[in-house]
C-alpha cells in the first residue's frame, strides 16, 4: 500500500515535541536543588528546551532532556545536580 503523504514533503510544525528524540540515550538526568536562585541562565543554555521559564519559575520537562549536563555545568549556584539513570544491575529508567 502506498502511504498517503502530503504532496510536498512536509512535516507538521512542532510535531517532534510530542515524540521527542533522544530520551532513550539519556544516562543521567538533572535535578534542580533548593538553592536555585532562578537566574534563568540554564533556560538559554539547554539545547533541548527541557528547562524553560514559566511564570517566573523553572520548569523541567524530563521527556525532552537528553541528559547532556550543560545545565549543571553552567549553574553558578551549583543548584543543578546530575543523577545517574541506572542504579543497581537492573537499572531504572525514569
Amino acid at each position, binding site marked *: 500500500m502506498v502511504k498517503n503523504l502530503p504532496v510536498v514533503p512536509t*512535516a507538521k510544525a*512542532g510535531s517532534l515535541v510530542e515524540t*521527542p528524540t*533522544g530520551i532513550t540515550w539519556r544516562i543521567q538526568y538533572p535535578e534542580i536543588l533548593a538553592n536555585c536562585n532562578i537566574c534563568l541562565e540554564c533556560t538559554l543554555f539547554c*539545547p*533541548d528546551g*527541557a528547562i524553560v521559564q514559566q511564570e517566573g519559575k523553572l520548569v523541567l520537562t524530563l521527556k525532552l532532556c537528553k541528559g*547532556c549536563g*550543560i545545565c549543571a555545568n553552567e549553574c553558578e549556584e551549583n543548584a543543578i545536580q546530575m543523577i545517574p539513570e541506572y542504579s543497581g544491575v537492573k537499572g531504572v529508567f525514569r
Partner: protein
Amino acid sequence: MAISIADLSKEELFGQGHAGCGGCGAAVAGRQAMKALGSRTIITIPASCMATLGGSNLKTTWQIPFYHTLFEMAPAVSSGIRAALEAQGIEDVNVVSWAGDAGTADIGFQSLTGAAERNEHMIHVCYDNEMYMNTGGQTGSQTPMYAITSNMSKGKAVKKKNMLAIMQAHEIDYVASASIAYPLDLIAKFKKAAEKPGFSYIHILAPCHRGWQIPAEKTIEYARLAVESGLFELYEVDEGVRNRTFEPTFIPVADYLTTQGRFKHLTSEQVVKLQKSINVYYGRGGDEE
C-alpha cells in the same frame, strides 16, 4: 538597553524534541536566536546537522516555517522567499538563512556573497563548529590551524578564513560575531539585525563537543573560553561602525586549546605563537616576548 532573561519570549519555537546529539551547540544557538526572532520568521537551512536535527519524515521540532534546502543555496532561496513576500504584500516577516561553516564559507559562499551584494532584506547566520560535523568532522575553511579532524590526522596546516572580515567588506547593514556562551549579547544582535532593511550576517561560535573532543557538558564552557582568551572576539559592525561588545579577561589561550582533543598535540611553541598573535591583536604587547 539591556535585555533580561525574564523578559524574553516564553515561546519555544525550536529545539524541543530535536534529533541532534545531547549537548549540541548548534541547537543552543538556534534556541537563543529564536528568542529574538519570534514566530513571524521563515528559516532556510542547507544540508548540515542543523537541517537534519530539525526533523525527519512527518515530524519536525520547528514551530515556524522551516525549509531544509540543498547545500549551497540557502541565501538564494531566502532571497526568493523575500521577493515572494514583497510581491504578495506580506510584511513583518524575518527571512533567515542559517548555515553551518560549510554552507556559509565554503560550498555555500557563492550564494551568500550574491545575496549580501544585493543587500537582500534578510539575515544569514553561520553557526560555526569549525568542521564539517554532519559528514563526520572533516576539515573546512573555518577549521582553525592545527586542529585535528577526521580527514587531517596531523592537523590543519593553514589558517581559518576570516568570514566576518569578508562579510564586512560587503558593506552590508549589519555584521556581528556571537557566542552561545553569551546569550543576551547574541539575542541583542539578532534583534538589531531583524530591524535592518537590508542584509545582516551573524557568525556564531557554536562548539561541537564530538568534533572538538570535549565533554558534552562543556559545550558552553568552551564557547566562553574562546571569547575570554581573546581568540574569538565578540563585536558588531553596525552600518559601518565597529564596536566590541564584550571585553575579554584574557585567560591564557592554552586554557582554551590544550584541553580539547583536537588540539592535544599542540607544541608549547605553537601555543606561545598563538598567544603572541592574540596579544598583538589586542595591543597587549605580544611583540616583545
